[in-house]
């Protein structure tokens, strides 16, 4: 039965990818990674320039997953209570309280979409820490549970004014940080500019069939995938070596141009991060119709699950994206399996 489930859900996943690839063109890799995150039950942070399609991509996925969907825009004056409740004066002239975006859909909340997360204050990030890690929230003397919730967030790296750096503890809650870049392909670029279907984003997203996945079955199925897809002792050793290399890259002969390797890394990947990496790798193996994880499955998710977790010396933080890419490529090149 479980084998059939695995096959059926793989069909659903492929269907999901195919539908999203129709509306968000030239983003096959991010789409595969977000699909992986959904089946690994991990939160996703998209990073990229302005207007590259981050929000459209997340909205498209949200439509396919089904369930309750809430969205909030990150602003400098956003406070944690804005996520929990609204207060207003009703028609009767009395104050009223209504549930905020987090509580609105109750336990059916499947996607909480946080747009421009880096514009929100650290207090808001702090609230998110708990919601993302535990999927619970205490409000009005009651504890609310969001068992199916995934947080999709995006931020642009270009603007630095009126923004707050997301602390490493909050970054670590995200399973993946996925860079979105404009495709290089001329035909795609031309299509994005001249094809009228891309002019109206709402209409575009609405062309995707809704509820391709059953949001309330994803947790159970994710556990099934994690149990069914195995990791051999050689692969475990390989993953451990990768982990060690994120802590002391110089010990493995990894070099990054223009960087003092002995001062670069303040903290390597966390145990939670490596656990998330293996979860994602298992899902990648399943999506590729395999029963066991290969090093190539780890490679497919290594950058997106590890890069945002490594803490660099402050002097190198400004070049984080570039350095992290070179560092992780160096680690993959340096570690052999077997």
């Amino acid at each position: 039965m479980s084998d059939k489930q695995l096959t059926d859900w793989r069909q659903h996943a492929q269907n999901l990818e195919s539908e999203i690839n129709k509306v968000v063109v030239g983003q096959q890799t991010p789409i595969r990674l977000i699909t992986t995150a959904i089946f690994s039950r991990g939160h996703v942070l998209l990073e990229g320039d302005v207007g590259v399609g981050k929000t459209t991509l997340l909205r498209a996925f949200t439509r396919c997953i089904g369930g309750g969907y809430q969205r909030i825009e990150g602003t400098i004056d956003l406070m944690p209570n804005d996520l929990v409740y609204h207060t207003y004066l009703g028609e009767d002239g009395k104050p009223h309280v209504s549930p905020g975006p987090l509580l609105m859909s109750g336990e059916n909340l499947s996607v909480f979409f946080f747009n421009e997360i880096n514009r929100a204050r650290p207090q808001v990030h702090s609230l998110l820490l708990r919601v993302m890690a535990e999927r619970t929230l205490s409000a009005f003397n009651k504890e609310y549970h969001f068992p199916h919730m995934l947080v999709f967030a995006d931020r642009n790296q270009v603007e630095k004014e009126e923004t707050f750096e997301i602390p490493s503890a909050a970054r670590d809650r995200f399973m993946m940080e996925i860079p979105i870049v404009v495709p290089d392909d001329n035909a795609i670029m031309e299509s994005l500019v001249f094809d009228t279907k891309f002019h109206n984003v709402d209409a575009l997203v609405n062309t995707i069939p809704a509820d391709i996945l059953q949001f309330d079955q994803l947790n159970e199925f994710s556990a099934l995938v994690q149990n069914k897809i195995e990791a051999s002792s050689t692969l475990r050793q390989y993953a451990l070596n990768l982990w060690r290399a994120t802590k002391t890259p110089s010990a493995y002969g990894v070099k990054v141009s223009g960087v003092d390797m002995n001062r670069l890394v303040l903290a390597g990947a966390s145990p939670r991060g490596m656990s998330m990496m293996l979860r994602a790798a298992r899902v990648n193996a399943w999506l590729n119709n395999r029963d066991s994880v290969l090093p190539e499955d780890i490679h497919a998710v290594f950058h997106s699950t590890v890069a945002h977790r490594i803490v660099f010396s402050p002097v190198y933080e400004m070049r984080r994206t570039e350095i992290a890419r070179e560092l992780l490529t160096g680690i993959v090149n340096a570690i052999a399996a077997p």
Partner: protein
Amino acid sequence: MKCVMNKLIKSSNIYLFTFVFAFILSKSFVVFANDEPSPDIPEGIVKISKINPDRNVGYLMGDILKRTIALDVKKPYKLIETSLPIVGYEHRYQGQVSGIELCKISHTKKENDDKTSYVIHLSYQIFTTAPVVKPAILPAEVIKFQGPASAEAKDGLVQYKIPEFYFRISPMAVFGAVKIEDDMSPLRQPILLQAYPEKEKLVASLILLGLSLVGLLYILGSRAWLPFMGRPFAQAGRHLRGLSATNTDDLKTALTCLHKAINSTAKYSVFSDNVSDFLTHSPSFKVIENELGQFFELSHKVFFDTQDTSAHDKNSLVWLKRFCKQCRDCERGLKPANLKKI
């Protein structure tokens, strides 16, 4: 004042001269006392045994004669080691040098309860010759012992004479056959020394130097005698040769070995997802692209697939050995032979 100073200087000079004179006198007295003949050692104190040269005729100039003298000396008599003859000492006979020189001497001493045993090794070299056979003598060496004071030897010094050894020195040429006086041309170059030992040493040194250079080249060439020998797949091939197809662990060893060879060639870890980069940078391997794919497939089955054990058969190792040979050919820029699928 000046007068007093002169007196002082004069008196101090006198003391100094007196001291130096007394010192020289005492030293010369000691030397004189040592060279002075001493009474013979009482009979029965020394027991001698000699090993003389095995023949006493047929010696030529330059020959070395060796004697070994063993002396058992009863206690409390002790050999005065400074009385032993010294190297370079040449005996004189009736004021004439004998032409026989002591060229080496050594001795050992062994203490027993009632006696002391001395073994003296003497080597004499002949520096004389004659037109006819000439009698010669290894001289009787006189050595001294310190014993108890007696009526004859108040200071206890006694001497013992090691018996001489008689032999004959042969001429270097037949008498009258060579008359050197008739052949004294000033144009004749001096007789040269034979250079054979030096030549041999030179040849041996050159051979050693040559071997060292070859060894150095071997080390510098990554421990390979030929330019292609030390390359990764050549090394892997040598390693794979010793592996057995029946041993399941050997399959893993072979795969690991080949992975290392591929990584060494690429200078980074090659996986199935970046094998195309490897082929771009090492285009000589492009002809075995399919085989590389099969290799990674096999590696995945052996190392990462926990359920499928179909790859663990002896054919896999045989295939790997052939694959390694293909890679070695590619490494050498040769066209590899086709390989059947596993």
